[in-house]
């Protein structure tokens, strides 16, 4: 009953201080509404890319036109220095230095100039630009590969068409060789005319005729002898030709074998699909969340930021307002134990935060049409209560430690900022050294974000996050004890 009175009193105090009520109740809601309206998409808008080249080749122009679309606008600049300066002054978000007269055969790389201090933007742009360049590069690669494959296919077809002629050539050569061999043998078989001359001499003796009677015949024999000598001498050329044909036959055989081998090799190429050759390993990035908008993916983080800042600042100001209020003394000397005021202030802050969360969820669900089942909402509610409790208790602890509202508010904002900084919101935790990361992963903001991602993005039950839940519950327990002790110590001036 007393706790209820404390809650009602705090609600009245909050609602009657219109400025505070506006900031505490409407501030986060307006923030979330604006974020919902602004980031409920998956694109970038009007990102300017500076480009410079001494001479823009057709390929360079093609690349630039590939980059330009509704998100990216390419701005050609006058020099490399100008391009870099424009990145520094944020006129463009990235500078592209293209080698002069860029050709496929060029070996000079395309250079990106980026402003590393704009970490998130840089990664987002580089990712997209690299993808776009990869697409262009792939297009070029496909063109080149297509040409090569076409040439190979043509060669294969022609070889297949022409190679059957080779055995015919070989057989012709064999026949020619055989005929020439026969000719060679025939020539070799031609005998000398000396026996004819001897027979003529015998006949002349037997007939006892003068040699003049056979002079014509002797002349013919002599002429024949000459012709035979001539044929015999030319038979060496026939032998050489036979040998030559034999060698040519071997060459034809080797050529036939080589062409067969080429045909077999070409035929043995299993992958002839050009896309497969260009990208032998295909990959596909599939999001594990159903929502692809910036808001959908960033929703747990945004919720955490609102939860943390509201929780810490609201509870700090509730405690410090009570401590510095004129009524503090009367509350203190009343027979009401400290724990009632602590629970009352905690419950008040929790109610305000849950109200805020309820409105944020309604606005978000309406804005994004994201489906939520009752079980998911229940899991999320439990997660929100646990996370809110941690931040409320941190804020109350700060409120009891400090005496003036200025220092307490400064401390609460500082603590919230430190928790935010040592989370993945600004830089991925993976950028931290391992030892620090091991500590930072127990940052309540990190734990809370993890829990909300499980329940909101992945629609998982809380049972799977029992380690995170245990850590959060441990935080709540320790902070509750610390808050109680601090209030008791703080009261006894």
């Amino acid at each position, binding site marked *: 009953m007393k706790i209820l009175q404390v809650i009602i009193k705090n609600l009245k*105090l909050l609602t009657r*201080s219109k400025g505070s009520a506006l900031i505490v109740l409407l501030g986060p809601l307006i923030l979330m509404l604006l974020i919902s309206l602004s980031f409920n998409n998956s694109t970038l808008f009007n990102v300017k890319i500076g480009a410079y080249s001494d001479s823009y080749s057709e390929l360079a122009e093609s690349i630039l036109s590939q980059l330009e679309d509704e998100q990216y606008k390419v701005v050609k600049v006058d020099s490399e220095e100008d391009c870099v300066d424009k990145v520094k002054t944020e006129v463009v978000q990235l500078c592209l230095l293209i080698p002069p007269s860029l050709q496929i055969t060029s070996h000079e790389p395309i250079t990106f100039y980026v402003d590393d201090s704009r970490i998130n933007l840089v990664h987002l742009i580089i990712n997209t630009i690299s993808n776009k360049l990869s697409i262009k590069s792939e297009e070029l690669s496909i063109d080149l590969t297509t040409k090569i494959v076409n040439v190979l296919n043509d060669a294969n077809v022609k070889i297949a068409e022409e190679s059957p002629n080779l055995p015919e050539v070989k057989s012709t050569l064999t026949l020619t060789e055989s005929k020439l061999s026969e000719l060679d043998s025939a020539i070799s078989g031609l005998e000398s005319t000396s026996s004819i001359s001897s027979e003529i001499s015998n006949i002349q003796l037997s007939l006892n005729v003068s040699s003049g009677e056979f002079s014509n015949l002797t002349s013919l024999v002599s002429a024949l002898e000459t012709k035979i000598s001539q044929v015999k001498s030319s038979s060496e050329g026939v032998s050489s030709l036979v040998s030559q044909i034999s060698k040519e036959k071997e060459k034809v055989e080797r050529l036939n074998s080589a062409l067969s081998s080429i045909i077999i090799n070409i035929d043995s190429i299993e992958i002839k699909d050009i896309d497969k050759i260009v990208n032998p390993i295909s990959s596909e990035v599939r999001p594990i969340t159903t929502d692809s908008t910036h808001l959908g993916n960033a929703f747990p983080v945004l919720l955490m930021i609102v939860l943390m800042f509201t929780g810490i600042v609201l509870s700090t100001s509730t405690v410090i307002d009570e401590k510095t*209020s*004129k009524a503090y*003394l*009367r509350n203190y000397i009343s027979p009401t134990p400290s724990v009632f005021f602590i629970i009352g202030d905690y419950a008040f802050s929790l109610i305000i935060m849950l109200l805020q969360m309820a409105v944020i969820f309604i606005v978000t669900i309406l804005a994004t049409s994201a489906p939520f089942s009752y079980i998911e909402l229940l899991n999320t509610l439990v997660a929100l209560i646990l996370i809110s409790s941690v931040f409320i208790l941190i804020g109350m602890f700060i409120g009891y430690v400090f005496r003036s509202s200025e220092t307490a508010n400064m401390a609460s904002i500082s603590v919230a900022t430190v928790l935010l900084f040592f989370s993945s919101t600004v830089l991925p935790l993976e950028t931290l050294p391992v030892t620090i990361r091991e500590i930072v992963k127990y940052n309540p903001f990190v734990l809370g974000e993890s829990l909300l991602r499980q329940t909101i993005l992945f629609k998982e039950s809380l049972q799977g996050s029992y380690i995170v839940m245990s850590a959060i519950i441990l935080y709540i327990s320790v902070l509750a004890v610390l808050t109680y002790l601090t209030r008791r110590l703080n009261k*006894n001036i």
Partner: protein
Amino acid sequence: MPRAPFIEIKGVSKTFGKNIVLNNLNLSIPYGEIFGILGKSGSGKTTLLNILIGFIHPDKGNITFQSRDINYDLFEVRKQFGFAAQEGSFYPTLTVEENLTYFGKMYNKNSDYIKKRISKLLSLVELGKKENVVAGNLSAGMQKRLDIACSLIHDPKIVVLDEPTQDLDPALRREILDLLKKINKEEETTIILTTHLLGEVEVICDRVAILHENTIIKQGTVDELEDIFSGTKEIHIVTSPGNYKSIVEYIRGDKDIEGIRKVGNKLIVYAQDAEKVMKALLTVIDKEDEELIEIGLHKPPLDEVFEYLTK
């Protein structure tokens, strides 16, 4: 004849850092009276009250309420105490009724009781038609009365008020003092108040304690305190050209003189045997060729005695 002690403070000391605020303080407060604690600003009056209501723990000593040590059963004792701080102890953005209801609940009172009590208290402190007015919108006098009503919501046996007339104009001051008398009479509530204005104590207090240099130097009824200084009288002298230095030098050694001070162009001499001292003064005025403009004999008011004692 003092009544039996309702509250007894024994040997209480309190130090903040190196600053000794209360040192071996002893005090007895009887039941049903209006008890004034007098002291200059910074004399430790508020610290004493804060110890009395249990907001601050003393370094040494103990406080008993109806013969019970208040620290043994603090919550039970607190139910018997009401407290009104200098600046008022309520929520300015809540209404009069909301403030009274809230503090009634904090004192474990049920709704019916609170409703009836609010009605009675608002009538007592004359805020009858202001129950729905936001406390911060009330006038200074009304806020003071609301604060007193808040301290009475749980019907305490004793109400402790820290400088209840602080920052109020004379008319409002009178109103509050009358209200305290009324509360003491109608509610039979013992009232302990601190003030540095002794005139107020003379008006309403039955008993007074003077807090000076970290401890109580005198306590008793107003009459008893006045009796302590009954033999002392004030001689007021105005001379021309007013060379009081030589006059003071002349009479300084007189054992009948308890104090001398200059207020404006007037020299005030506190003396036991005033007539004898007055003669001596006339002699020296004549000797120093001072022209006597005015001379008179007065009984010192209590505030001047207080001021003299705490100088």
